[in-house]
């Protein structure tokens, strides 16, 4: 049974390592500050006890007052999973650091979020639209897209 680690005790571990970067930790998810996303992700991936080597899914949500990107992390050996979240607040040019360096699976999934939400990921090798053609203006999955 994949044990879903609770955001709280992971938050305590991360708080010790990187003070001040956990924005909010609920029972089943862990919200991290946008700019410290990479360090926390690298920490989660490389520490022997956790080693989340399998990023299952990257999803984007538009909550109108902010964009949220959800990383479902899994570890194949310990068979436990964690939900990591990051938010970006400005709507004109939302940016988040790209995790392609850590998990190559994020390549297409981040391009999809860029294509449908407009969140640009800094450090992504070729951030282009994946489904829509180049000339398409606007990002369809935003709540204010008509």
């Amino acid at each position, binding site marked *: *049974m*994949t044990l879903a680690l609770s955001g709280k005790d992971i938050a305590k571990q991360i708080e010790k390592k990187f003070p001040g970067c956990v924005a909010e930790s609920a029972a089943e998810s862990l919200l991290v500050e946008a700019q410290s996303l990479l360090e926390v992700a690298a920490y989660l991936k490389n520490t022997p006890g956790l080693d989340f*080597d*399998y*990023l*299952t*899914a990257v*999803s*984007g*949500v*538009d909550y109108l007052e902010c964009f949220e990107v*959800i990383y*479902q992390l899994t570890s*194949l050996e310990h*068979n436990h*999973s964690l*939900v990591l979240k990051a938010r970006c607040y400005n709507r004109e040019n939302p940016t988040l650091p790209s995790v392609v360096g850590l*998990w*190559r*699976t994020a*390549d*297409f*999934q981040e391009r*999809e979020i860029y294509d*449908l939400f407009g969140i640009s990921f800094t450090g992504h090798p070729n951030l282009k*639209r*994946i*489904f*829509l*053609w180049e000339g398409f203006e606007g990002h*369809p*999955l935003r709540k204010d897209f008509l």
Partner: protein
Amino acid sequence: MATTAKTKEVVINTEPFVVNFGPAHPSTHGVFRMRITLDGEVVVDMEPVFGYLHRGIEKLAEERTYTQVIPLTDRLDYLASMSNNLAYCLAVEKLAGIAVPERVEYIRVIMAELQRIASHLIAVGSFVQDCGAFMTPYVYMLRERERILDLFEMVSGQRLTYNYMRVGGVSQDVPDEFIPALAKFLKEMPGWINEYDRLLKDNEILLARAKGVGILPRDLAIDIAASGPVLRGSGVKWDIRKADPYSIYDRFEFDIPTGTVGDCYDRYRVRVEEMRQSLRILKQAMKGLPRGEVRSEVPHLIRPPAGEAYGHIEAPKGDLGFYLVSDGSIAPYRFHVRAPTLINLTVLADMMRGWKIADAIVIFGSIDICMGEVDR
């Protein structure tokens, strides 16, 4: 960036040319386009182009009630609609906290495993067709798939987009003549699979075309979060039915076939062995099918409490996940599909580099994608 084959004194400069294995090509399993840069026959670089079948299903789902989304999930991976329905219904039941009667669990497992065999039949058939076997294995496997489609048509009324499962159960109970027909199918099917093996398993030319071709190393497979037969072909023993058993998969005993090297031949063998394991599960599920209700008490317009849920199952093509966010209204606020085939394609360019065009098609065929799910 012309490659130069340097002999001692003569430098031969061949200028690479770009070929479009475009949206309309006999072996791209749907409207998938590859811009392949060729140096003679050798693939130098490949750039995939998606979006020819993008219908915006995730945007459509935001205007539909939870029940009206089910016909949409049929059209995601149109070769495995039952598994899409099951994954979506499990995610909504997890979101809304709905329990499901015992009989429905067994019916769902039977339908999911039948769908796995049907999807693998198409996968293996089209893979061997890409290797060049002129239609024969493909037509044999389609004949077996027809038997499964007859069972699905008996149960749901349609042969491709079943729209059979509902949140909290299934739309109608299984008719009485279903179990005898299923029993007859289970008695015959192992014989047919053995016949495919006699035709293909150690056919020298298929071995030559598939063994050692398009190797996906183990750690790269984990790094790109491949799933399903692609991941297990590379030797990673990870199957959601065992690792994170949903519905009642922990009651059945079956084992997970894995490949060794991670080449096209291993992926092909993993799919054939998985068909045999599905038959084992089907036998146990058919014996244990209890009597009882097929729908739990679910209001017509389900209003799950505000919140989010991520449910995923072992679909035939990989780890199919649904990420649902609900704001308490009758329609999902956000409906995201984790498409296993889009993610399995992440590293297609690296797997193809250095091989010939004929191998490029075989490698692409061994990953077994379905464009409905890739483009959503």
